[in-house]
């Protein structure tokens, strides 16, 4: 009965046990891999940051990816699709009709309810207690400064690709440094002050639009760039009256009398003018069948320096004609005014200038008519004129070097004379309202006529501008401001010229930004260069 197993039987039993053990191990491993492993703990965190932070020059945040979620629904599992659509619409702000149509469409197993919902919205959705909801983690670009820097920083699309401004211009750098930071040259404080003052001036003078720029004259860093009307980059929706255009970089204008700076610089460069030379002004200056007039009443004669200080068109035309059209065109080309300005901003504009650069064109270009350039291009060329005469390029990246001046474009003596002359415009000319005690402000006003849709100038419509450099004896920054079609007020005696509208705005900006930028307010008063050239 109790038979002892044979050697073969024992071997079979051992083999069977080993086989069962092996299969059991495989089975256990299968259960482990398929059922238990997903519960082993928290899944590794998903990467939501696709773009680096954009910061200002002091490390303040300008743009950052915030974790948000896209919400999808599986309508098959809803027991009441209409109620689900209503609840989700209330929680997320989505269209109830769209959701209901999507839920009733049998072709769609998944319906996108809302993109980039915030944690608050997510909590509201969870509170509904609906089954069949799925969240997909992603990132949404957020701009803490909102409208103030909207055009210069730009925006991204829902897929986090830059579509305008530095978000597009610095796309490669931002993607390469994902999770890190890209430091721009913008100063948040300067940007805010610029936006605040341009907004205030636009409201005060009931202007259609306004814009401003603050730039370092020695390394080209743009510290602030504002264009109003602007838009809210966080909503990705334009309200009535909003604009995405960057008027400083993207638009071109006839800038008017501010352009006279280049005629005087050319005159100094060619030694064709003396500041104490007397020029006949009169009631009009005839060139062929054309007559050049003054915007305001002028005396019969003006000294060279007063032609710029009082902004005489006739005097400037005579100065421009002394150098001639060929030389004027060559000079403006050297200053970079006849080609689109290059910077990290993708928005740029091609200048418009006469194809036939004859005598009358030379005269009108001399006082800023008949040539249209972008304010960024103009400010860059002006910075070159006052920084010792060396070329700079505008940049929106924070630079480690404070001096990035390049090729010598005009003589240092010409630059010195222009600085003195710009200071004279503020102390004794049309730019008086831009003066700020201690900061030695130099500058030039410009009140240009505005062309209408038919190409003719609109009566009484002006585009007023002011370009300021400070401190004039050793410039560090340039400020450019402009207002589109401002109206005079009781305080300005009804005048809307740049001296009453743009110049005081520039003065207020300098008064507020200069202390923040560490410019000492003890500059000695600059005297007009004597005996030059």
């Amino acid at each position: 009965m109790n038979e002892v197993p044979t050697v073969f039987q024992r071997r079979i039993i051992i083999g069977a046990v080993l086989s069962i053990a092996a299969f059991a191990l495989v089975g256990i491993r299968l259960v482990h891999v398929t059922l238990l492993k997903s519960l082993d703990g928290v899944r590794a965190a998903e990467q939501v940051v696709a773009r680096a932070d954009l910061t200002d020059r002091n490390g303040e945040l300008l743009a950052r990816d915030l974790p948000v979620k896209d919400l999808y629904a599986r309508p098959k599992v809803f027991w009441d699709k209409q109620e689900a659509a209503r609840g989700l619409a209330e929680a997320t702000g989505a269209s109830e009709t769209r959701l209901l149509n999507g839920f009733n469409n049998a072709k769609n197993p998944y319906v996108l309810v809302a993109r980039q919902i915030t944690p608050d919205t997510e909590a509201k959705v969870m509170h509904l207690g609906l089954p069949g909801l799925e969240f997909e983690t992603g990132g949404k670009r957020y701009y803490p400064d909102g409208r103030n820097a909207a055009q210069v920083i730009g925006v991204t699309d829902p897929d986090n690709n830059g579509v305008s401004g530095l978000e597009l211009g610095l796309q490669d750098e931002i993607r390469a440094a994902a999770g890190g930071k890209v430091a721009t040259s913008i100063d948040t404080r300067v940007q805010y002050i610029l936006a605040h003052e341009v907004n205030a001036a636009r409201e005060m003078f009931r202007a259609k639009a306004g814009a401003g720029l603050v730039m370092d004259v020695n390394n080209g860093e743009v510290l602030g760039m504002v264009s109003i009307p602007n838009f809210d980059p966080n909503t990705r929706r334009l309200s009535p009256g909003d604009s995405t255009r960057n008027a400083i970089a993207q638009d071109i204008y006839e800038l008017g009398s501010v352009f006279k700076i280049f005629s005087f610089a050319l005159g100094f460069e060619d030694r064709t003018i003396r500041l104490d030379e007397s020029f006949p002004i009169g009631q009009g200056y005839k060139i062929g069948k054309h007559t050049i007039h003054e915007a305001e009443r002028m005396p019969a004669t003006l000294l060279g320096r007063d032609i710029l200080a009082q902004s005489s068109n006739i005097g400037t035309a005579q100065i421009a004609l002394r150098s001639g059209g060929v030389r004027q065109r060559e000079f403006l080309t050297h200053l970079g005014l006849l080609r689109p300005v290059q910077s990290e901003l993708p928005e740029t504009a091609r200048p418009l200038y006469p194809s036939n650069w004859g005598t009358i064109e030379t005269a009108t270009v001399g006082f800023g008519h008949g040539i249209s350039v972008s304010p960024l291009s103009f400010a860059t060329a002006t910075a070159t004129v006052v920084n010792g005469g060396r070329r700079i390029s505008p940049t929106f990246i924070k630079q480690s070097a404070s001096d990035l001046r390049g090729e010598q474009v005009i003589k240092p003596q010409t630059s010195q004379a222009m600085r003195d002359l710009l200071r004279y415009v503020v102390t004794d000319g049309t730019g008086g309202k831009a003066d700020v005690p201690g900061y030695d402000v130099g500058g030039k006003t410009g009140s240009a006529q505005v062309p209408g849709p038919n190409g003719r100038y609109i009566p009484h419509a002006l585009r007023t501008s002011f370009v300021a450099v400070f401190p004039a004896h050793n410039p560090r920054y340039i400020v450019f401001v402009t207002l589109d079609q401002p109206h005079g007020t009781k305080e300005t005696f009804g005048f809307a010229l740049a001296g009453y509208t743009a110049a005081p705005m520039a003065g207020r900006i300098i008064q507020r930004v200069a202390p923040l930028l560490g410019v000492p307010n003890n500059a000695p008063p600059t005297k007009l260069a004597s005996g030059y050239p």
Partner: protein
Amino acid sequence: MVRILNFFCVALMGFSILALYHVSEKTRVAHVQLNQVTATIAKERGAIGVLETEWQHVASPERVQQLAQSKLGMADSASAQLSSFEDLPRRGADPAPLNNTPLHNASAQIPATPESGM
């Protein structure tokens, strides 16, 4: 002798399997913990990022100016009211502006306030 050797080898193999499993299990647990810590760090980083963004928003120059004007009655200062530390007299030094020396850069005029009766 061969049986003892076989038994020893099988026992050694079993022990090795157990030891290997133990190490594998410890590794798995450590991996789970690492994932948990990584997820927590990522979550905290996300929260810090949100807080930094909120801070940037509430401490923006625009909001600070509004609060300073509405709550503290502050206003922009004129350039003549500003000076640098280098211009301050050293301790014990003669405070030059008080001995009839014209004030440096005092070219700005402070507007008369209604309370001054002017």
